[in-house]
């Protein structure tokens, strides 16, 4: 049966502008580009599912095609759901491991010194390369010892004193890898006189979607819609996240791609810098000391798709002593787990090569970006420390307190 509700492909005027902005099609002929893989082939796929072709896996879901399309065709959603609906997921240990960020995190944070030691050994890297098709050139992000939640539960009491509160969806990265970012988010929100609440949460599902584990992604999504929805139902609290991709999933992907009812949380969910921006606009700006640095800012694809870059730049411009260089908006190539796959590694590097060169030319003191996987890509390919805008904001506050 043809689903007549989902015919945004019919708005396509065949201008091929989307393909002009696809970072993957730009660097490889293995991928025919969004126009062909999206609206063109969807016409055939809805009639005969066997016409699905394997090149769909090269789409890294950056959504840049959708931003470019003058006719509002939901190209990446068409491609994403084609992967889900028409193709069978082959068993892959690698994809399983890469996409189970919370499972891997729980195990690894417990043994973090050992895990961090082993993932940096060349023998282990060789093994991962040969048996799991994870390129040996990739560095794994370091795991933290214990979880952010454990830290937070010890500090929960201090949050009770705030009249206004917000639900913070910390995500896997903060929980298992970068507690400092979570702590920075809490510190900045507290400085704005907002207390932090943490609900029960599962991985937002972005890595699961990217590796076509749609059933598991739906399960996680339903869990998050339920628990986050419950946390805000009897108040006007907002839900925020410090990860652009988690925010994107909660707010849009659950409904547009997974076709779930995320109405209890969709309108409440915002990316963290938007909330901070709103406070700044109201005049609620904490005291900050000049940071006196030059920084290059890279806008992640999903933040771009949400139109939220304006808020991040808005708050960065309020940090005294920050010389901000905006990088031309383009995909860095990492795209979550994409760059960790051997078959996509070179594509991922080629996509990012322009950005690396531009950063080197600027010679900044550090790079700022909102997304953890962009951070990994930039740190691996340049010599510069790469941090989250909220981390920089908290450093400006710290300077003030000391």
């Amino acid at each position, binding site marked *: 049966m043809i689903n007549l509700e989902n015919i945004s492909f019919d708005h396509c005027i065949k201008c*091929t502008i989307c393909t002009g902005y696809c970072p993957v*099609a730009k660097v490889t002929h293995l991928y*025919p580009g969004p126009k062909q893989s999206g609206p063109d082939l969807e016409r055939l796929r809805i009639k005969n599912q066997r016409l699905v*072709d394997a090149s769909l896996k090269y789409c890294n879901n950056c959504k840049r095609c959708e931003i470019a399309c003058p006719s509002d065709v939901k190209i990446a959603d068409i491609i994403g759901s084609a992967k889900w609906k028409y193709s069978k997921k082959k068993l892959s240990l690698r994809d399983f491991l890469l996409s189970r960020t919370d499972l891997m995190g729980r195990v690894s944070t417990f043994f973090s010194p050992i895990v961090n030691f082993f993932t940096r050994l060349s023998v282990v890297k060789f093994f991962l390369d040969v048996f799991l098709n994870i390129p040996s050139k990739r560095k794994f992000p370091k795991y933290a010892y214990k979880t952010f939640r454990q830290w937070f539960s010890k500090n929960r009491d201090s949050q009770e004193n705030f009249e206004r509160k917000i639900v913070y969806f910390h995500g896997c990265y903060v929980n298992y890898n970068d507690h400092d970012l979570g702590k920075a988010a809490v510190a900045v929100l507290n400085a704005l006189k907002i207390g932090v609440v943490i609900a029960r949460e599962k991985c937002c599902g972005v890595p699961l979607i990217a590796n076509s584990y749609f059933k598991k992604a739906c399960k996680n999504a339903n869990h998050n819609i339920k628990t986050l929805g419950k946390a805000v139902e009897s108040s006007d609290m907002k839900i925020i996240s410090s990860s652009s991709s988690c925010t994107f999933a909660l707010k849009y992907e659950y409904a547009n791609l997974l076709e779930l009812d995320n109405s209890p949380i969709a*309108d409440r969910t915002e990316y963290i810098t938007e909330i901070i921006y709103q406070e700044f606009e109201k005049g609620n700006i904490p005291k900050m000391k000049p940071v006196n640095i030059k920084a290059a800012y890279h806008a992640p694809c999903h933040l771009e798709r949400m139109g939220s870059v304006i808020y991040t730049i808005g708050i960065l411009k309020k940090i005294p002593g920050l010389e901000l260089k905006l990088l*031309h908006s383009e995909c860095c190539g990492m795209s979550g787990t994409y760059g960790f796959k051997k078959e996509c590694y070179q594509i991922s590097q080629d996509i990012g090569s322009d950005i690396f060169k531009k950063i080197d030319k600027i010679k900044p003191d550090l790079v700022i970006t909102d997304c953890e996987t962009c951070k990994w890509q930039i740190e691996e390919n340049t010599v510069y420390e790469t941090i989250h805008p909220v981390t920089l904001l908290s450093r400006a506050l710290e300077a003030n307190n000391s």
Partner: protein
Amino acid sequence: MNYDCIIIGGGIAGLTCGIKCASEGLRCAIISSGMSALHFSSGSIDLLGSHSGQDVIKEPYTELNRFIEENSEHPYKKCGADTIKDAFSFFQNEVSAQGLDLFSNEEKNHFHVTPVGTLKTTFLSQQSVFNKKIRDAFFRKPKIAVINIDGFRDFYPAVGRINLKKNRLFKDCEIITGSISLPDIKLNPKNPHEFRSIDICRIFDSYLDLNKISSLISSVAGDADIVGIPAFLGLNNYTVIIKSLREKTGYIIYEIPTLPPSILGIRLDNILKSRYAELGGVFIAGDRVIGGKISNGILEYIHTENHPETRLYAGSYVLSTGSFFSGGMTSNVEKIQEPVFDLAIDYDKGRENWRGQAFFHPQSHPFLSFGVKTNDYLNPYGPSGELIENLFCTGAVLSHYDPVKEGTGSGVAISTGFLAGTQIVQRKTGQNKRDHD
């Protein structure tokens, strides 16, 4: 307040305005959804091509005063001939500072060839479409070779040749056609590759051996003087590629604009965006402005589709959302509307009068000149008729001009974008509105 000026729509009008404001040190943001009409355009800039749609204007600056007199509600009337001239020289300087030179025929119009071999009057073009050498070659009745690349389906040299031959200018020129195969290209055998202008452009930009391609071109073009080739000679390295092909083959290399995506247009778009960014402007590409709050003749704030609850504040705002094609105007069975603020518009209420007699007609289509109604300073009127002082409208969203019939498309966009920018800078620096007389 974070911004002095927020511009809605990032086509040539919005970008010109943004560059003007940013170059004067204003904090600017452009919010734009979807790529603009530049991606569909020839990449050449029209200033004024015709009074009636049937005549051809040779010297647009000379004719401007008469044109303005005869069209009292035209956006050009609001700019005035001097501002239009200033706007063009500002525009030309800014794109040139970013590395793209635009050529005019010593302030006269010239023509460019369309993908089907017809001619269009225009005012500024990139070097591969118009320069002094091309013009001089025409006086010598050159031999022309129109060449395609095998597999490119959006261009038919034979059709181009037939149409060119119908034209007086080309009647005595020998025109030959041919095609070449790109050497060493890497295509995926599993995918019936698309091979549109953008795909070929990327091959030129990345790894094509220009020596090989030059000798292939020479083998087809023989003793021709000019080689016409679809405009896909690179998006990043086009200056080097075109220069090198010219030197290696000895021909004048002429780029013919293609069907979308138009590489010539995208080059201009990229240059304008880089210029704007270099001057410190912020460009937000992933969101659409859906409305704002207007009270007492002032637009207080705006909000967007993805963030309906967040208010974006600025001192001045610009509406550069284009015409029907870009969603700046919308229509349904009953009426025509400006969708963001529901501004007052000029249009013919009788639906039967919206379109012309034929699809291609010198008199064009009436709907093309429907648009937002503004005062002499480009300020529009709100839904209840009140003037909105800090909102300026520029480009194709304006009423009373027909880019097709008059050949004024990008000219109006540049002139009104520049005029709005100038006024916003003045507002910011506390000066009074310029003396219009």
